């Protein structure tokens, strides 16, 4: 339930209804129009599914970049443009509703991409942070700080599985003192703490949807 349950269901329902209407409407079709319309329907259904798949993969960190999500969205809109060539008021009305659902889904998708990028940034930075030698300038490892970093890493893993506000709180250092900004051997840990200042917008949206 990455990018909003309600818009996704609206898109799916809209596609099903439009497909049904178009197939009935085109009982005696112009062959060329028929072919283009069926192609558009296929594009619509394929890309709606691809969008969900790619968003899930992005959330799981399995998608190398966001270009597939951009292509999926562009293809959805192209298919809608093609479907509007069907000259039928009833279908047009449903296409308007479907367009609204796609618009809403796209807005959530953009928010997801932005927030997911920040999450991925935080995770990469966490890996860098944990890998940095914690010596406080003494030349020896500092067990207390190492322990705190391990706790932070564990809490971040929990947060990734369950991105709610209370999980986020568990990832915070209790007082912050043991990971002081003044410690130049622990680069910018406040950056990671700062990244947990607020839950990402997509998590808020999901919480609001009850997902």
């Amino acid at each position, binding site marked *: 339930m990455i990018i909003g349950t309600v818009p996704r269901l609206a898109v799916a329902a809209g596609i099903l209804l439009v497909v049904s209407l178009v197939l009935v409407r085109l009982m005696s079709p112009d062959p060329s129009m028929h072919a283009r319309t069926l192609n558009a329907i296929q594009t619509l259904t*394929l*890309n709606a599914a691809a969008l969900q798949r790619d968003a899930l993969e992005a959330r799981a960190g399995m998608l190398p970049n*966001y*270009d597939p999500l*951009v*292509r999926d969205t*562009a293809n959805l*809109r192209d298919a809608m443009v093609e479907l509007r060539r069907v000259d039928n008021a009833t279908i047009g009305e449903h296409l308007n509703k479907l367009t609204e659902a796609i618009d809403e889904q796209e807005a959530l998708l953009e928010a997801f991409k932005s927030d997911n*990028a920040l999450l991925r940034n935080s995770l990469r930075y966490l890996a860098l942070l944990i890998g940095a030698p914690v010596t406080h300038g003494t030349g020896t490892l500092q067990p207390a700080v190492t322990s705190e970093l391990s706790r932070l890493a564990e809490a971040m893993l929990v947060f990734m599985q369950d991105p709610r506000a209370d999980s986020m709180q568990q990832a915070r250092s209790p007082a912050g003192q043991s990971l002081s900004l003044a410690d130049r051997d622990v680069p*910018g840990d406040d950056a990671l703490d700062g990244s947990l200042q607020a839950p990402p917008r997509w998590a808020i949206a999901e919480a609001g949807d009850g997902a």
Partner: protein
Amino acid sequence: MSHPSGYGADDAGRKHLNASEERTAPSQHAVEPISPVEPPTGLDLAKVRLGERLFGDVRVSRGARVACITCHQLDNGGADHRDFSPSPEAGGMLDHNTPTIFNAVLNFRFNWSGQFRDLAEQNSFILQSPKLMNTNWTELIGKLRADSEYSTAFGNAYGGPLDAVQVLDALESYERSLVTPNARFDRYLRGERDAITPEEKEGYRLFKAFGCVTCHQGINAGGNLFQQFGIFEAPPMSEGANRPSDLGRFAVTGQERDRFVFRVPSLRNVALTAPYFHDGSAATLGAAVNVMARKQLGRTLEGAEVGLLVGFLETLTGEHFGRPLYRPPPRETQ
């Protein structure tokens, strides 16, 4: 409609996703977050030439004082090396830095606020904006039809009388040709392991380790999402911001969540497009890297780290029609 992939279009001019083909095609760079730029395909050279001519023709502006190429200079990385570009039609200066025209077609939205979804929409706005070309379609079409060479060329390329749709299509055709493949980093991604130096590889490793790549990814090393400018530090213009361009997408949508949110710029050819950011506030690439580290990562980088990152970014400079992009001399800093 523009598609951010560099793929060729089908006969209908649209890209239809063949999900199974795209996702199973083997690729050396399949696991890297940045993918190489492909040479442009599916171009109609007659339309590209028409677009190129329009791009450099001052008659597209009402007062014949400015053409697209005035700000999007191909020998200046596709920009103009200024903090803000002048506005000859309106007087004074524009309120934003000119982004590069190279690889613009690979972006998912256009201009700093990501206001436009396709090149035709953006170009139509630019032509009619009082601060930019300040013309209208009646005036512009009249000028072009009065030129027998344009009339003949458009007639041969498109058929029918010259109109706004053809003008926009010609401009878009030209912009589609302005992609820059064969950057050294792209050659590295394709398996030419010696295309970049060990230091540049280390710069790429830092680029990924610091998380820069989480926004600057994809075929255009950016350009495919929105992001807030100023995560760990407030944007420099948040206090007393008096330019609409400083507010990012908020100036377009009016929604509070879009305040200081910008379309992430591409880093392709970034070594050639100083100064940086929407307000040209970073004079050098090193300065821009430092700003990004502070504001987006909450980190102050060591000088050596900045040097490595800049070295990597320089490997993103590509070629245009087989010729390396011209590197302008460094701007004198104050």
